[in-house]
């Protein structure tokens, strides 16, 4: 459904963030993108919906090349791709409801959105989604009154109300505690299953990725160095992705921690 063909991105400073990326994401598949900081994970996700303009190559979403679209076509294409951010990126001074409804901006005209006169089906769907993530009672709160986990749930609602085919998820758990991280990852993967959504999830917590996704792609210096099952991530592979480190100990320790948390729950 989504296909990246020889995608490259070179920043003005000369940094080559992506070197000829080829990737195929079938419908409904959730994949995790791992790699060290600066490997190009964020750039890759942003090149797909063109928050960052790719230098060359093609991004095919259902056979439409997104890189060739004009601004109107790009807006239409962006509606098909929901995005979830690391620091939630909610509009802090708007209410939860306004934030969720802002996911419909691509479908609603300027004056309707400006006057907050959203079509009734959109409002119904917003309430349904808020109920699904357990935040219905928060609908009228301002976004900056929420905790981190709650904000990320609102972010998820905003992405889902777009009715997307694909979720682009940029470090969804990086600002959250371990327990909330797992809840958020579980929520995202569950919702993807319910709706048959494909998702690309940037994540730097390898153990967390292994726990929730069926496919892992490892990025290093803008190149794909691993693409396969989460169980195939051996210490050798992790060394190839992240560099030399004693992986046995790290992985074991992480797993121990997880057990502790599970016991505590």
């Amino acid at each position, binding site marked *: 459904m989504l296909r990246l063909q020889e995608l490259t991105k070179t920043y003005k400073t000369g940094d080559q963030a992506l070197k000829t990326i080829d990737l195929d994401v079938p419908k409904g598949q959730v994949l995790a993108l791992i790699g060290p900081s600066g490997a190009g994970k964020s750039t890759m996700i942003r090149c797909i919906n063109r928050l960052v303009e790719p230098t060359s190559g093609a991004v095919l979403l259902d056979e439409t090349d997104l890189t060739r679209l004009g601004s109107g076509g790009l807006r*239409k*294409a962006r509606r098909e791709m929901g995005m979830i951010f690391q620091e939630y990126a909610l509009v802090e001074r708007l209410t939860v409801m306004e934030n969720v409804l802002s996911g419909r901006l691509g479908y609603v005209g300027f004056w309707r959105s*400006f006057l907050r006169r959203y079509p009734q089906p959109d409002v119904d769907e917003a309430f349904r989604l808020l109920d699904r993530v357990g935040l219905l009672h928060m609908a009228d709160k301002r976004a900056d009154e929420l905790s981190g986990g709650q904000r990320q749930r609102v972010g998820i609602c905003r992405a889902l109300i777009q009715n997307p085919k694909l979720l682009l998820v940029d470090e969804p758990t990086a600002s959250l505690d371990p327990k909330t991280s797992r809840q958020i990852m579980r929520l995202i993967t569950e919702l993807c299953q319910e709706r048959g959504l494909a998702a690309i999830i940037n994540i730097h917590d390898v153990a967390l990725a292994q726990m929730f996704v069926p496919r892992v792609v490892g990025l290093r210096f803008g190149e794909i160095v691993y693409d396969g099952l989460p169980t195939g991530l051996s210490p050798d592979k992790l060394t190839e992705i992240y560099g030399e480190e004693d992986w046995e100990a790290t992985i074991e320790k992480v797993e121990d921690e997880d057990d502790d948390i599970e016991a505590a729950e």
Partner: protein
Amino acid sequence: MPVLEHEGTQIWRRRTTGENLIRWFGWLLGVAVFLYCWQIISASTTWFFVWDAPRIADDIWTRATPPKWEYITQLGRPIWDTLNIATLGTLIALFLAVPVAFLAARNTTPSTLFIRPLALLIIVSTRSINSLIWALLLIAIIGPGVFAGVIAIAIRSIGFCAKLLYEAIEEIDHSQVEAITATGASRWQVMAYGIVPQILPAFAGIAVFRWDINIRESTVLGLVGAGGIGLQLSASLNVLAWPQVSLILLVILAAVVISEWVSAKVRGAII
């Protein structure tokens, strides 16, 4: 941070000897320049007037007190004009400053090469000329009166408001804008949802702050004939009616105190 070795112990000093000397000479030079200027000013001062000043001030004080209270009946209208000049001027300025600010801010300007310098030019040129001078120019163009005062205040305030506003726009959290853009929102929707909510508190603060300043500025506009209480002030000064002058100053003081109280309240409510 020099460290000296002295008999095996390390002695730490804040500055090296060379730096100390340079600083010492800097201070010496400063004091010398100050004394030299003092001497020049002293030589060109008519000291008789200075020694005489307390007596004159005392004389004016006795003439000016008590204020001529019954004159207040004639000040209602002018102070109302002054308030209107300030308020209308601020409103017009804000109306014009918003687009200028969006054109000047690095992250919203359509073109950094052509339009941004133009917007910055508007900001600098309106800011650098005092409102009294704008009033003088405008009186020559549109004639004396309140209208000239309103326009003078408006023009003078555009640069101030636009500058503070564009700085606020440049400091917004970019990720919120990204998030709104990613939903497929149009340029104007991104502005209304991603940018405006973030700068609204700054905008309200700037508006009240400038209104407060403008009340003070508009009290003197009448001195050059641009309407408001300054007209009465200049007329009273011309005929040496000191009790009237003192009453006018009291009225201006009251107006300024009230406007400051209002602006403090409003800003407190926003933040």
